[in-house]
């Protein structure tokens, strides 16, 4: 039995918020609460897009970062390039890939030969990892957090964790950070190898939902 209140039955208009919904609600009430971002619905890792790489593209783009997210989470599964390639990332602003030397990276690789550090403070791309192999079974998989991508007042930062088999071949892991040193609202991301094409793999982009 709906009434003239925005949420719930007649009587006192109880304040509603995520995690604090009180009353009995009909579907119309719930629709209003969802619209106003006040309905408790757990599961704050929200899938925005999954892209399965086929057809050997030179790059793969994610052109929808959703709205309202301060932190995004990206997974990479069974990513294949040609032999001894780096996996790179560039951001997009207004749909345009940004190629200025505004990217920083710093990550550590651990492998069966000891590992190494990989860093650059001013490059025209963000290298996520390097030296990926492509013999049978060789690929990379991992995850990446992206911070402040939709905030015009802050730089965009990244943290990554990956495992891969290098071209040597060494079983390897890497972790580290990255930055895009421009305060801007991003519209998307572009992934591409250091040369040749992206052979295969799956990239999923999630937004981490928050409530004020």
């Amino acid at each position, binding site marked *: 039995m709906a009434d003239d209140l925005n949420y719930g039955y007649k009587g006192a208009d109880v304040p509603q918020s*995520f*995690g604090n919904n009180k009353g009995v609600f009909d579907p119309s009430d719930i629709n209003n609460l969802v619209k106003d971002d006040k309905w408790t*619905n*757990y*599961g*704050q*890792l929200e899938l925005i897009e999954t892209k399965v790489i086929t057809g050997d593209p030179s790059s793969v783009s994610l052109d929808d970062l959703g709205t309202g997210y*301060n*932190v995004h989470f990206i997974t990479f599964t069974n990513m294949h390039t040609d032999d001894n390639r780096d996996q790179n990332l560039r951001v997009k602003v207004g749909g345009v890939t940004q190629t200025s030397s505004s990217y*920083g*990276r*710093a*990550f*550590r690789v651990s492998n069966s030969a000891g590992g190494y*550090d990989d*860093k*650059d*403070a001013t490059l025209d791309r963000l290298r996520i990892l390097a030296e990926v192999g492509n013999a049978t079974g060789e690929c990379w998989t991992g995850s990446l*957090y*992206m*911070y*402040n991508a939709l*905030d015009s*007042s*802050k*730089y*965009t*930062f*990244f*943290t990554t*964790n990956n495992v891969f088999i290098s071209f040597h071949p060494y079983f390897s892991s890497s*972790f*580290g*950070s*990255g*930055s895009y*040193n421009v*305060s801007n609202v991003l519209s998307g991301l572009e992934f591409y190898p250091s040369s040749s094409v992206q052979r295969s793999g799956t990239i999923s982009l999630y937004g*981490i*939902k*928050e*409530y*004020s």
Partner: protein
Amino acid sequence: MATNLEFINSFEVTGTVQSLDCDNIFSDKYDVYYLTVALKESSAGNDQWIRMRLIDNTGTVITASEYDYAQLAMPANTGFYDTNRATGQNVILYGGIGYSDDTGNGGSLYVYNPNDSSSYTFLQAQAGSTVGNVLFGTKGISVHKSAETIRGINFHTTTFWGSGTVNVYGVK
């Protein structure tokens, strides 16, 4: 049944502050918590580490010398170093959650077993921030070496934050 991350609370910097209490966030509902940390200094050039302390079950920030930590610092323009480590400290100075600068920062923090009165509380963080416009990556671990119930976490700095948000999620 809900899965993955479950939002618990959001804490926002209002005004110009040196400290942000995230209280009443840990409970018996989860064993593991995920926090996103984005704090921005109020003016340029201060570049201070984000410090952490835990809050006990009475709401008191723990200042006893019960923290150990270790951090790998990864500046993008010079060699990495792992000398940011210590035992028996009264604050987690180098916990891996990074610097705050006026360009903002971005970090992820996992907290393990805070509500378990029979276990230490363990933390793991990874972040990106800038110092002098150069990327400064960090990855760190820390522990509160007292088996007690923890209900919150305090972030603080020796300079000032002008904006920023900490969001807290339970890992289901």
